[in-house]
């Protein structure tokens, strides 16, 4: 669990609200820019947040995304109430997806979301309870190591 002392923002996300997909990522990006976080880090955070946001919208009833800025890292924490993931190992494999046609028609649901998050994180953690929800944590180091 990240240190609450460094909590910088908490954003609420409504499931199935594809119209607003990306709004949280965009707000977070603006916020991190104001805080003077380097551009390369912000770019990684944007990918992580967007994918986390789209996952909540696609598969959960609702969720929250929190952002922590610590002296040497930025941590994104996404938590949702929803169907959860049966097999988190399988879900991380690129190409694996449970998305329905309505999600795929928009260009989402290709099974690349979690892989993208993992690839843009220095530390990555995911756990899920089917029919309850999913917890995801991504940490990006400010020094790039």
């Amino acid at each position, binding site marked *: 669990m990240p240190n609450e002392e460094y909590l910088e923002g908490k954003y609420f996300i409504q499931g199935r609200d594809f119209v607003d997909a990306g709004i949280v990522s965009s707000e977070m990006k603006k916020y991190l820019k104001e805080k003077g976080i380097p551009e390369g880090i912000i770019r990684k955070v944007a990918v992580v947040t*967007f*994918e986390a946001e*789209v996952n909540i919208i696609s598969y959960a009833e609702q969720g929250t995304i929190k952002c922590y800025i610590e002296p040497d890292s930025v941590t994104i924490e996404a938590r949702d109430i929803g169907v959860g993931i049966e097999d988190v190992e399988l879900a991380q494999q690129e190409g694996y997806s449970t998305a329905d046609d309505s999600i795929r028609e928009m260009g989402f649901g290709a099974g*690349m979301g979690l892989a*993208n998050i993992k*690839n843009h994180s220095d530390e990555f953690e995911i756990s899920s309870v089917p029919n309850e929800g999913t917890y995801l944590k991504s940490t990006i180091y400010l020094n790039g190591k």
Partner: protein
Amino acid sequence: MTLQTLIDELGLKCKCCWEKLGNEIEGGYAGDLLSDVMGNSKKGDIWVTRQVHLNIVAVASLKEHAGIVIVQGASPDKDTIEKAQKEGIPIMVSDLPEFELVGKIYHLMHHAQ
């Protein structure tokens, strides 16, 4: 190369953000899977896609693309244009299929005098 040059050379139609046609194109990416574009495209890219719904604007804005070109004569949704205008992401359309348009853009970027 600027977006305006691309429009002039390839007969694209601009749908919004005319004031941004001076944007410099630094590279390009083609794709219709939003996570693919999110994960692999770069800042300053011209993004070529067949997708028309408003989530393309979120992706282009987060990745700071120079602009979006929608191919195959498809029309962006009304709310896509509105959001793009708000976010300052120029959207252009082309009647060409994705493969042909990408080929032409690539040629212009890498072989034009």
